[in-house]
């Protein structure tokens, strides 16, 4: 018995020695809870660096912190403001997504979002006049950036307009951290930024990361299906995430920049999978607004190449292809061809799967 115990102990030690090193950190930033898990050598240092990077970005990009660059831009009253390469990159990404989606993503929608109370939780339905007035200032194309290239720049926003990177910042933070971790030699990491998933490499055992897509219809945050990721991001936008009800009508936080009203396109959630977390984040919101047909058209046009074809123009990851998981009100889950072998619909969710090949 004693001998067996000694051997057992030795075995445990040996196994512990083989187990991959890992470090985990939970941080509260960008209005959400983030869980960062990094594997490999120096995991502790790397996860710390990633957390610090995210906090830095938050300081820069927060729309509510009075010392942020975005705040300075929003309150410049039409004056020109010096912006960092990060803010510039996001403005360029916002423009690329805006142009590709006919304005379905507009980063200047913030005053309208605030009028609905989605920024504070004090929800209300703004009247038509208020919306019309606020929408006049909403136009991402009115943002001027000099020079028109990556790096630090000068930005000008029309007086009264306000920018908010809520639809891009988490994806961007994930993408930047993933790039930084790869640069430090990390081969395996999972960054969960409040529903935005960014992966580095595969799991330590070499198999792809398995990420559940939340069932938009499920009451208790059930899983709709799983998608396998390798060095990719997966971001979901859905009307179920933040909403309020009045007189039996549900009003959610994803607004159509055209009308200033909650986007009702027949979709209940959109998950975008791709190499660029920023693109996934922006597109998930835009596709939710666009609806199924227009989203699939966009995928046919740009799914392979993404929206920022070269590293030079945006400063984002140059391989920017993407795939879509669209969940419709009718219970149909539409998945684009690139995820054919990587997405698995759970059993008994009451949904039907449709794969779009071309």
């Amino acid at each position, binding site marked *: 018995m004693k001998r067996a115990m000694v051997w057992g102990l030795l075995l445990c030690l040996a196994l512990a020695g083989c187990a991959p090193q890992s470090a985990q950190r*939970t941080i509260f930033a960008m209005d959400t809870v983030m869980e960062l898990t990094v594997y490999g050598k120096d995991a502790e240092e790397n996860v710390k660096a990633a957390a610090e990077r995210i906090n830095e970005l938050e300081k820069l990009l927060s729309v509510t912190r009075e010392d942020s660059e975005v705040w300075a831009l929003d309150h410049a009253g039409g004056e020109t403001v010096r912006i960092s390469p990060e803010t510039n990159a996001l403005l360029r990404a916002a423009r690329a997504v805006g142009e590709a989606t006919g304005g379905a993503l507009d980063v200047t929608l913030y005053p309208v979002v605030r009028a609905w109370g989605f920024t504070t939780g004090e929800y209300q339905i703004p009247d038509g006049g208020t919306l019309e007035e606020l929408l006049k200032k909403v136009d991402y194309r009115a943002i001027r950036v000099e020079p028109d290239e990556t790096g630090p720049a000068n930005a000008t926003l029309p007086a009264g307009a306000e920018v908010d990177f809520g639809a891009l910042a988490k994806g961007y933070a994930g993408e930047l951290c993933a790039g930084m971790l790869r640069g430090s030699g990390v081969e395996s990491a999972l960054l969960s930024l409040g529903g935005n998933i960014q992966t580095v490499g595969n799991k330590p055992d070499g198999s792809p990361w398995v990420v559940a897509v939340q069932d938009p219809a499920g009451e*208790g*945050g059930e899983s709709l299906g799983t998608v396998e990721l390798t060095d990719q991001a997966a971001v979901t936008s859905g009307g179920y995430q933040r909403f309020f009800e009045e007189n039996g009508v549900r009003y959610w936080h994803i607004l159509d920049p055209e009308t200033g009203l909650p986007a009702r396109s027949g979709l209940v959630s959109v*998950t975008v999978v791709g190499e660029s977390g920023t693109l996934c984040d922006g597109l998930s919101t835009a596709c939710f607004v666009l609806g199924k047909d227009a989203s699939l058209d966009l995928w046919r046009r740009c799914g392979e190449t993404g929206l920022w074809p070269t590293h030079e123009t945006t400063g984002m990851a140059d391989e920017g292809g993407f795939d879509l998981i669209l969940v419709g009100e009718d219970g149909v889950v539409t998945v684009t061809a690139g995820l054919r072998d990587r997405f698995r619909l759970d059993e008994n969710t009451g949904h039907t799967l449709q794969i779009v090949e071309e």
Partner: protein
Amino acid sequence: MKKGLSNKTWLCILGGVMALCAAAAALVFLRMPKGAVAVVTLDGEEVHRVDLSAVTEDYELSFTGKSGITDVVEVAPGKIRVRQADCPDQVCVKQGWIGTGVAPIVCLPNRLVIEIADGAGKVDGVTG
């Protein structure tokens, strides 16, 4: 020698019972949902952990974070929710019960997170 069954007969009987048990165990193993363990963390610190499948009676716990906001967490057989919260947006309360799901309940203002550990099969993360 007392009268009775032979060794062989006993072996058959016990073997039969074992086979039945094995079948039942296999059935239970296949059908039983993995014990859903709910973990409550406040500002990253674990403050409560409970196996929801072992809960027989409802109970409530209050958690007050640094912000001064209080969340009342209700635990019931197989499920858990934030029943009441002082936070302005009430996102956590609206999320209702979770139990078998993969998505956590998050009360951001209070930095309270309720997660189902190893819930609904094994996934590495959740997007939603």
